């Protein structure tokens, strides 16, 4: 069972605060982290490998620094990690990202399952997984919360929908995105850590994956960002003062007056 896991390095937004005076981001202390949802994808890949044998290959499109994240992936059980890094990938939207990941998957060739996170916390679109599936022409299932069985070239999975759970069967290869409920990602093992220290992370460029220049980077993107701005947080709360009983009474009156309740 060969599994490809798509990981993205994202800015950890824990410490992000807006400077109220300049209305810009205070960026001190933002470090790059593995997209939290992608850790579940990786853990699931490693568990499947442990159960069925085979190999987990992690791919990520990003800047050279993302190699560190890929080493981390090796420390928790990935067998191989490939960094897709090239100036030609700059400016990619989800369409171009999915095209790039798709070409990498084609080069890897032998895969039975591709696992993505349900969404990133920076792009936050959840589009790359389904677009990747379509590029490769293989089935897609979103928000998988449990892989029940894999046998005879098919898998049976569970996923949460708005009003319950669905059990779905799909032929392999396929692309899935996983929900947080699927597992609890492990910590790196000592063996994993030593393996990751010596690991070499190959870098594939646009030429290496034989990507058509019109499908990658900004040229391959459907969407273009024309403007970026900070949301205006000008609304200052109307503070309701007084002793608690007065506060409670005033609040309820205001809500009734404004016909909110």
């Amino acid at each position, binding site marked *: 069972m060969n599994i490809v896991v798509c990981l993205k390095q994202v800015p950890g*937004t*824990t410490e*992000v605060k807006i400077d109220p005076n300049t209305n*810009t*981001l205070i960026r001190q202390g*933002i470090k790059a982290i593995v997209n*939290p949802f992608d850790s579940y994808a990786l853990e699931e890949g490693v568990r499947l490998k442990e159960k069925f044998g085979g190999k987990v290959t992690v791919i990520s499109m990003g800047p050279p620094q993302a190699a560190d994240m890929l080493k981390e992936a090796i420390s928790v059980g990935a067998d191989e990690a490939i960094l897709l*890094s090239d*100036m030609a990938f*700059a400016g990619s939207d989800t*369409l171009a990202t*999915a095209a790039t990941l798709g070409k990498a998957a084609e080069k890897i060739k032998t895969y039975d399952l591709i696992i993505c996170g349900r969404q990133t*916390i*920076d792009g*936050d*679109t*959840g*589009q790359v*997984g*389904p*677009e990747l599936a*379509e590029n490769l022409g293989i089935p897609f299932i979103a928000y998988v919360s449990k892989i029940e069985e894999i046998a005879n070239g098919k898998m049976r999975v569970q996923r*949460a*929908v708005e*009003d*319950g759970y*669905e*059990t*779905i*069967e*799909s*032929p392999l290869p396929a692309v899935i995105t996983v929900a947080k409920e699927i597992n609890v990602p492990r910590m790196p093992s000592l063996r994993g850590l030593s393996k990751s220290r010596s690991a070499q992370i190959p870098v594939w460029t646009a030429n290496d994956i034989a990507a058509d220049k019109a499908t990658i980077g*900004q*040229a391959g993107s*459907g*969407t*273009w*960002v*024309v*403007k*970026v*701005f900070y*949301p205006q*947080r000008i*609304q*200052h*709360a*109307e*503070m*309701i003062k007084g002793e*608690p*009983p007065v506060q*409670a009474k005033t*609040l*309820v009156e*205001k*809500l*009734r007056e404004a016909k*909110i*309740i």
Partner: protein
Amino acid sequence: MGISLDKENCTGCGSCESACPFGLITIIDDKASIKVEGCNLCGACQDACPTEAIKIEKAMATVTPGNDYHGVWVFAEQRNGEIKTVGCELLSKGRELADTLKTELCAVCIGHNVKGIEQLTACGADKVYLIDDPAFSNQSEDPYVAELVRLIKLYKPEIVLAGATPFGRSFFPRVAAILKTGLTADCTGLDIDTEKNLLRQTRPTFGGNVMATIICPSRRPQMSTVRPRVFKKKLMPVPPAGKIIKVDFDKAVLTSRTKLLNFVADLTEKVKLEDADIIVSGGRGLGKPENFQLIRELAAALGAAVGSSRPCVDEGWIPYSHQVGQTGKTVCPKLYIAVGISGAVQHMAGMQTSDCIIAINDDPEAPIFQIATYGIVGDLFKIVPLITEQLKNG
């Protein structure tokens, strides 16, 4: 193509450094140093540079979209024959867009025995394309993807919108990928650049800290998803005559590779946070799980749903289905009451578009007050029961 710096002109003033929303610029040896990877060529630095030292060249549109794309479409999602409100909300917005573009507004509804099709025309659709077949009794995606792609290729709409529901977020990107066009997720603003007749799509990014305006200049259709409750549903005072057009299709395409084997309704999960008009959320300020009772009592008095910040979920005080925020649910109720919640960006990303926000917190500096409509500084253990009582007595 790309971004470049004219070192001669760069004075190292740092305007670009603070303008870059993604922190890709640093001043090294009095010159700007730009990390190109991660840059989406948004142009914030170029605008900020006083000496025009930063140049951004975008690839010219390789394809000019033909003039043969017309009309605004809304994919009106149904589940079990019930049309989702988000479709109506999008039609109300779509009506504005279509009027600005002086074009027609159409709804596409795919399902079986769908009830209440008239509401789509009541919200402004000039035409409703309806596909009705038992094959669409469930939401196996493949046939939906195939049919929507076929209709788009056939009728060539310039804009297609869908709700960012779990189904929409999963099937719509596949449609965009097949059509090789751009798709902007979770838009909070849609309008028309009347000069270029392009759809301007605005959405939060970077955990809601930064807003981006996005266009799709060279491919068609222009596609966006919008979360439920972002736009308001408006019934037309005089609805258009609104034709309902039953579309024929080829049954052969209706095979789905994935098969739905079983569906189990989840009866325990009654929290319909996304649909609630009023939400009362509790945070770490509650101190211990038993104190969620205060939140439940207030919610009961208001007929509200109960939400939570993440630490309470992580501590196991309340199930994950109640979590609001970037890694939980996005909500947009009429009224959101945040009790003992500090207002971390990740929490605000999930609730900041609520119509009215009330913050109850003992720390006057808590960031939640920046986005609140009404703020109460004080001890939640005193105030919340008093509010509940006040509501019961009124």
